[in-house]
């Protein structure tokens, strides 16, 4: 706090949370169940919109050239009743719902990631609840916005809606959570918007579905009801499965996931992951594997409660469960869901910069979790790996599914940021990030804001902070100096695509600081030279580098490409990392090219336009059919 402002001894401290009402989980299911939700979001002072620190709701209806009155959630009467009562007919409650769900998703990510979440360049995410007429809602990276559509229920097959009734995608908690997750994933890994292999968008989808699905387990009243309704069948987790199957029901979203869950419910063996080619199916397969691991862990977690409740027999009496037992089981169900999702989200820092696969995600999950919980005492990691094995999702090229084989490799020799090859102030970075964590204190002088400012290519030159620019240059120089050991090309330009410090709590309850660098290279020399440089699929390599607090590299997560000048390998031992990266890069290059032509062949527009087919795989097309454009096969 600045020194010239005198603290007011009578000031009421700000509340920690704000509660807002939403549908549960959309107007249709609320009509059927009569249930609403109260969503808890961190308190912040809001301008009408609502406009807060992270999101702005822009309720302009362009088709009708109309603003709808922006809701003021800070009004006393609104605050006193946990926001407006959700109503399909009141656009202000639409604004409230998109704000509430978006903020609760962001809040969850922040807690899981172990660091403050900021949008790139301190831009806010814009939510446009009535953006267009159409059966879609999508995150648009160029606009930094989630655009929600509205449409009329079909006249001949309206489902549980009235024929011709207007359906608002912005009223579905699942869709909001899903789309905001796309935005967050995009913030963390920008290049995952480039469909460089069949898993990239499937992974985006899976993470978005996973977060949206597990968000259902964030509401005690809903989980409690699901558990209470399945008294005889508590051990099988049937009620929780039903809850999951509600996911996206009325909005036509999540069909692949629901069908995978239905298979799970029917006890059918899942189709092997390797045989699935359609991104929604691949994504759904992964989500169901995580969900299965969740159910296993949940059943394990409540086993003792069941023994206590039944005098050791495990057989529950007929009739309603004891409310105390329901409460305790509910707590376990929520707690386990939280830990499972946390384990997945925490993997983000351990993901490659470009071109991810589900195998990479599995390795990221295992590495992140193992670094914090070497013993896996709760056996969460083991259950997840087993469940992924059953579904057939595992990384290629690992010898076994033991922790050791699944974690990302550690460097063979010591590489240190801040060594003689670079002028990087590692302590300064740590100190600044630490300062950022104290919400009462001023922001650190190298806080995430200034880190990111100069990382953005759109930034006007005058706005680049001199300090940030210097740091970025120093890190890039350091990376090029060690390029051969980091899976990069010493002769290509390295850009720092991300830099942050996270503090996660380990098994010993101590915070573990970690510095994460995202280094990226564009390899124009490997792109199709017959095409216009502006209209080529990009060839990128990249390496995520995890550093300990002393600047020593602890993990290298590389997606290499072959060296431009392979004479650099002369004289290096046969098994040197540089040779391995180069060989792997050659394989990867072939795979990238094969995929580009697969996508081109599958896209009927390839015949007609010079734009690379890969570019047409984007978020807007992801949720909109026609299938056939995306159904490109592996």
């Amino acid at each position, binding site marked *: 706090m600045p020194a010239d402002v005198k603290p007011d001894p009578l000031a009421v401290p700000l509340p920690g949370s704000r509660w807002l009402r939403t549908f549960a989980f959309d107007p249709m299911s609320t009509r059927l169940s009569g249930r609403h939700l109260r969503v808890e979001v961190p308190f912040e002072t809001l301008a009408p919109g609502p406009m807060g620190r992270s999101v702005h709701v*822009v309720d*302009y209806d362009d088709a*009708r050239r109309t*603003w709808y009155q922006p809701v003021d959630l800070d009004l006393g009467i609104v605050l006193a009743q946990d926001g407006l009562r959700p109503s399909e007919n009141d656009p202000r409650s639409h604004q409230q719902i998109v704000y509430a769900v978006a903020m609760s998703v962001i809040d969850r990510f922040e807690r899981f990631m172990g660091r403050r979440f900021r949008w790139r360049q301190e831009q806010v995410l814009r939510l446009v609840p009535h953006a267009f007429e159409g059966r879609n809602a999508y995150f648009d990276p160029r606009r930094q916005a989630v655009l929600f559509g509205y449409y009329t229920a079909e006249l001949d097959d309206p489902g549980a809606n009235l024929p011709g009734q207007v359906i608002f995608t912005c009223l579905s908690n699942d869709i909001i959570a899903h789309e905001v997750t796309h935005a967050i994933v995009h913030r963390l890994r920008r290049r995952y918007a480039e469909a460089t292999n069949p898993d990239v968008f499937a992974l985006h989808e899976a993470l978005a579905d996973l977060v949206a699905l597990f968000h259902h387990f964030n509401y005690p009243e809903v989980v409690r009801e699901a558990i209470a309704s399945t008294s005889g069948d508590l051990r099988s987790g049937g009620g929780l499965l039903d809850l999951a199957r509600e996911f996206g029901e009325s909005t036509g979203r999540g069909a692949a996931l629901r069908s995978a869950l239905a298979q799970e419910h029917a006890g059918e063996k899942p189709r092997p992951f390797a045989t699935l080619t359609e991104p929604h199916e691949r994504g759904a397969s992964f989500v169901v594997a995580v969900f299965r691991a969740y159910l296993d862990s949940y059943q394990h977690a409540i086993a003792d409660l069941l023994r206590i409740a039944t005098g050791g027999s495990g057989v529950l009496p007929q009739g309603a469960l004891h409310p105390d037992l329901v409460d305790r089981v509910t707590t376990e169900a929520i707690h386990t869901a939280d830990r499972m999702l946390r384990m997945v989200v925490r993997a983000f820092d351990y993901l490659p910069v470009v071109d991810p696969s589900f195998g990479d995600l599995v390795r990221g999950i295992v590495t992140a979790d193992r670094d914090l919980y070497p013993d896996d005492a709760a056996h969460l990691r083991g259950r997840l790996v087993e469940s992924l094995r059953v579904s057939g999702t595992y990384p290629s090229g690992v010898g076994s599914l033991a922790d050791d084989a699944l974690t990302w490799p550690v460097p063979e020799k010591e590489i240190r940021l801040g060594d003689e090859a670079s002028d990087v102030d590692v302590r300064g970075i740590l100190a600044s990030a630490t300062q950022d964590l104290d919400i009462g204190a001023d922001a650190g002088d190298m806080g995430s804001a200034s880190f990111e400012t100069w990382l953005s290519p759109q930034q006007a030159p005058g706005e680049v902070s001199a300090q940030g620019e210097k740091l970025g240059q120093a890190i890039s120089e350091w990376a090029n100096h060690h390029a051969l050991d980091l899976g990069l090309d010493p002769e290509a330009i390295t850009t720092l695509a991300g830099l942050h410090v996270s503090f996660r709590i380990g098994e010993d309850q101590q915070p573990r600081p970690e510095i994460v660098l995202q280094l990226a290279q564009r390899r124009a020399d490997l792109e199709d030279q017959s095409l216009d440089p502006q209209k080529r699929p990009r060839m990128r390599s990249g390496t995520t580098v995890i550093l300990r607090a002393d600047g020593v590299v602890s993990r290298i997560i590389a997606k290499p490409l072959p060296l431009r000048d392979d004479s650099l390998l002369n004289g290096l031992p046969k098994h040197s990392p540089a040779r391995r990266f180069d060989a792997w890069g050659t394989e990867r290059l072939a795979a990238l090219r094969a995929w580009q032509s697969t996508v081109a062949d599958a896209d009927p527009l390839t015949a007609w336009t010079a734009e690379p087919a890969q570019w047409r795989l984007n978020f807007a097309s992801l949720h909109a059919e026609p299938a056939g454009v995306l159904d490109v096969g592996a």
Partner: protein
Amino acid sequence: MSAPEPDRVTVRMYHVGFGDAFLVTVRRGGGTWRLLVDCGVHRSGQARPIVDVVNAIIADLVADAGGGPPHLDAVVATHHHADHISGYARPEWEQVEVDEVWLPYVEDAEDADATMLRTAQASAAKELVRLVESRTSVLAADGAEPSAKLMLAHDFAINALTNDDALDRLLGRNGRGFAGDTVVRFFPKHDAADNTLTPLPGVTVTILGPSRDPDELRRMDPPTSAGWQRLALSADTAMSPAIGDLFGLAYAVKDHDVPEALRTARDSLELAEVTNDAGLLGAAALLDRVVNNTSLFFLLDVAGTRLLFPGDAQQGAWEHVLNDPAKRLLVRDCVFYKIGHHGSGNATPRDFVEAAWADGGHAMLPWGLVKAWEDTIPQENLMAALTAHHHTIIRNDEQEPEPGVVSYQGDMWSEWTMVLPPAGEVDVPRPRQVTVDR
């Protein structure tokens, strides 16, 4: 009677513009067999009025008829895109005797699978035209031009409309038809043996596609939605009404009642640019491809000289040919290939050029300039790959005569000829009743 002409096969490619019109003439053992493969042009790529081409074909047939009426042994309509059949709508065809019309089975009104597919494709085309045109009129009301995406989508959808006038002639419907008795035949037949025809001794036509395999049929399914919009796939599907006001008027507020930060955000969001044009285009392009994949795909074998006519079959529709060892062997030794789909990038599989087809043949490119596709069709990589495999590309716009093999008549046609070893004289029986052969 003058000395018999030497046995030979010629393929004359008429220069319609962006479209196909091929007259194949086989002379063998004193018999002559004439086949017209397609006659149509894309409305955005006409080199000349299609009637001029129809008249040129008929004049050539008259000149070749030795005083009799112009005659074709068979007419093929590979698929119902306008750029392949629009010319058949012309009344001039009424003077031409046509013995047989060959169509892909999807045009068979009596085939249940085909009818479903055809109806769905036709509804999708109509619905897309409607969506594109209603969007264009909304833009026009604002004084705005349709985007390039929208115009291309319109082109595809119009091209995919059923072209009823031309089909009437081909199917002998609604009082239209050709002169003489005509048999309409749909291919392929269910029985593989019925897919090899012998129009003259030593001359066979083998039908290779479209596939009747249910899995392959999926490649002919029309899109069910255009981006954010569902397409009505049967005529009786009720359309949703237009959406009026979303909320009560009391909720609408004026610009100045909204915080400035929101107005700034609104302006930077450019919401008017949020359109479904890409979705419409994607669906229209998919529709274009599924109709291409209904193409009648055949191989003509004249005493061992093989010619391949794939229609406009795109990537997927070649798979069942290239993946079948016997069929792959058939296409290997072709000396002539009608380049599929005007030389676009995904109608001639890499596998065909790089592996399946033996080097050193001739390939004919039916092409005319359409400004919008100038950079993409024909695809440079494909042309380069054909040249690298020592194939000669015959095209009207880059004429390179090859004595005795490739010749041109001004801008009207290009011709490829192969002289064959002589064979014995034969009598060619002709069917003489109107039947529809299924």
